[in-house]
């Protein structure tokens, strides 16, 4: 094997939420299942493959999904159960390499370059992961094996469900050539017609285009498409699962004096930090808010919670309180606002008594995480956090 080549796996659990529901309730197996909100404005967080045949997809309004598949069974999500299985799935991946980068509860990159000598080629490791996932969790994972993240992710999706697709370094570009550009990350429904108008319909077409011409027509950021179309991607697999803290902060061009606006921005940060926390498989005990105001004076305010949590709702309550406490004691216009969580607990303690409020919050978080995973960052937010001037 070529020592300088990397071997990256993209592991993607098939129809995760729906599969978990079918796993826990045998009555649901083989039936079309929709996981998500059942109210008037409910949204599908996940659809089982039996429902996908009818055209049901995640992020689709439940009402529409039910029109497409009237026999589909709707179940509310169980955030805690998905988190539990996600943690166990990530733990299986981690037994093959410490470089595991979860992208969502059901998807992760694994860099097994350093594990090949001991554990075998990418294919061998991938098959072992599939076997263990099936036996230990009762779930099916599709895996793409490739020399980099981009191709690995394309590979895992090519023959889903229950697939193992391998792309060798040799002949990579020619194998990618026939793929339609819809599969290119970053080319969505809005830019598609413009590429088609330029005669670019496949990866092969992109491979042929001069990168400078591409940039002048579609913008600097499109240069990347040229590299990606050849199957070149040097992003590394970054693990957040051993981090001691997770945070996000934003500096403004001009100080902001409107408290509501600051809180909206803080909420957006809390949502993102909470999501990363859930992905890392931990719960946090400490919330910290960082504020820079006046002449670059920067302060942090922390609070340790009585119980570790990964619920956006709880983290937001405390972050908001911390900000308001500071504001009460002498508000000044703010230049930077950030939040972080720490004091992680990875072995999650179960509770004796149900907490319906926490369960509801966990459901919301699970659905939101699923939508984000499919559509990216800010596609769905609490109403408050929608920033002015942004989509």
């Amino acid at each position, binding site marked *: 094997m070529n020592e300088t080549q990397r071997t990256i796996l993209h592991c993607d659990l098939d129809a995760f939420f729906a599969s978990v529901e079918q796993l826990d309730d045998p009555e649901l197996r083989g039936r079309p299942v929709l996981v998500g909100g059942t109210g008037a404005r409910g949204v599908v967080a996940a659809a089982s493959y039996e429902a996908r045949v009818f055209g049901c997809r995640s992020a689709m309004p439940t009402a529409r999904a039910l029109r497409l598949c009237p026999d589909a069974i709707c179940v509310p999500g169980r955030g805690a159960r998905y988190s539990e299985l996600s943690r166990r799935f990530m733990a299986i991946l981690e037994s093959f390499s410490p470089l595991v980068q979860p992208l969502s509860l059901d998807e992760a990159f694994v860099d097994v370059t350093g594990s090949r000598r001991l554990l075998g080629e990418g294919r061998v490791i991938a098959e072992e992961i599939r076997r263990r996932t099936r036996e230990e969790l009762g779930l099916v994972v599709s895996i793409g094996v490739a020399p980099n993240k981009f191709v690995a992710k394309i590979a895992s999706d090519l023959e889903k469900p229950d697939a193992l697709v391998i792309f060798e370094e040799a002949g990579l570009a020619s194998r990618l050539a026939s793929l339609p550009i819809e599969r290119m990350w970053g080319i969505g429904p809005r830019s598609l017609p413009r590429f088609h108008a330029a005669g670019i319909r496949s990866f092969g077409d992109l491979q042929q285009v001069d990168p400078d011409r591409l940039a002048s027509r579609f913008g600097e950021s499109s240069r990347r498409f040229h590299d990606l179309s050849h199957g070149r991607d040097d992003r590394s697999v970054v693990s957040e699962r051993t981090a001691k803290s997770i945070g996000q902060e934003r500096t403004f061009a001009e100080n902001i004096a409107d408290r509501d606006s600051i809180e909206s921005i803080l909420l957006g940060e809390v949502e993102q930090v909470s999501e990363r926390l859930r992905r890392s498989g931990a719960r946090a005990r400490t919330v910290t808010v960082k504020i820079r105001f006046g002449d670059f004076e920067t302060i942090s305010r922390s609070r340790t919670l009585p119980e570790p949590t990964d619920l956006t709702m709880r983290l937001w309550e405390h972050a908001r309180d911390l900000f308001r406490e500071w504001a009460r004691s002498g508000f000044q216009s703010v230049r930077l606002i950030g939040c972080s969580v720490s004091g992680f607990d990875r072995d*999650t*303690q179960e509770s*004796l008594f149900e907490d319906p409020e926490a369960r509801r919050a966990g459901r919301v978080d699970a659905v939101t995480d699923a939508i984000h995973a499919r559509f990216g960052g800010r596609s769905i937010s609490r109403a408050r956090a929608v920033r002015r001037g942004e989509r």
Partner: protein
Amino acid sequence: MKVVCDRAALVEALALAGSVVPTRTTAPVLGCIAITAADGMLTVAATNAEVGLTIGVPQVDIQKDGTSLVPSDKLTQIVRACEDTTLTLELEKSILHVHSEDAHFKIFGFDPKEFPGVKEFPEKASNCFTCSAKVLRRLISRTLFATAVENSRFAISGVLAEKRGKRLRFVATDGRRLAVAIGDVQGGAEEETFIIPAKPLQVLNKMVDDPDAMVSIAQEDSQAVFRIGEGADAAVLSTNLVEGQFPPFEDVIPKDQDKKVCFESAELGSAVRRAALLTNEESKGVRMAFSEKKLLLSSRAPEMGEAEIQVDLKSYQGDPIEIGFNPAYLTEALRVVDAPEIEIELKAPNKPGVMKVGADFTYVVMPVNLT
């Protein structure tokens, strides 16, 4: 007031009273204790508005009756610091003089009328029942450790006391583990249910010295009152009860555990404590793998290390199982269980485990999800 006291006895009484006095007060008079000499007895009284206590001080020679109201911490420090066998306390107006062989202290006190007073034991209460100090101590020690530090949903910062006929049951939980202890009592009403805050139970536990002493328990005016012993050395503690709802604990006591094993408490305790050495805040669970002949405990603290401990099992009933627990929840229970053997009952890795000592002690613990 003038009284000669055995210093050791006085120290003990002052320590107990001191544990009830609030440490930070808005007015100095609230940090005081009342010392009363009357009818040949010396009593120390303290209150923090929620909990009140009076204790008799034995081995005293009353030379003159009277009441002194003085700051608890200062008096306690002085009495502790002296080395004499006896001390003489003498009241002059509101100044309390403490005489020892080689020293003389004056403590400025307050008018005893300012003392809010402590509830007396309601002798005539129809709901008054009794139990031995030994039983009460056992009920307290077997449950107090499991109370919650803070909780907004349920009234679990205290211990639930449930009397049904001749049986008194104490229940405590923090939402993750639940302890139920049962003891025999006599008299009183057929059914009683009330929640006692944790702090006064801690004090009560320390007040009970003689296991054979009788403790009387009654309720009046939304308070529970305990009297330990009778006569000169009797002590009385009264406390407000905890308002609010106790969670539905009966529902969470499992009834269908199908994996059972007996342990020597000491052996299990030692194994769990050693496994706990390689846990930390982030990774605090201990994995317990039960099989027919042995239990394998393992733990892993990232960047620190791992531990593996093996315990031979004399008999194990049921299928093998791997389950994780916070080791503190196990060792805390084992510490208060004063029995050489305990039974553990399990069902599934995500279902609660049960520790039992006969029918008198049941302890339910929720597992951790191990990564």
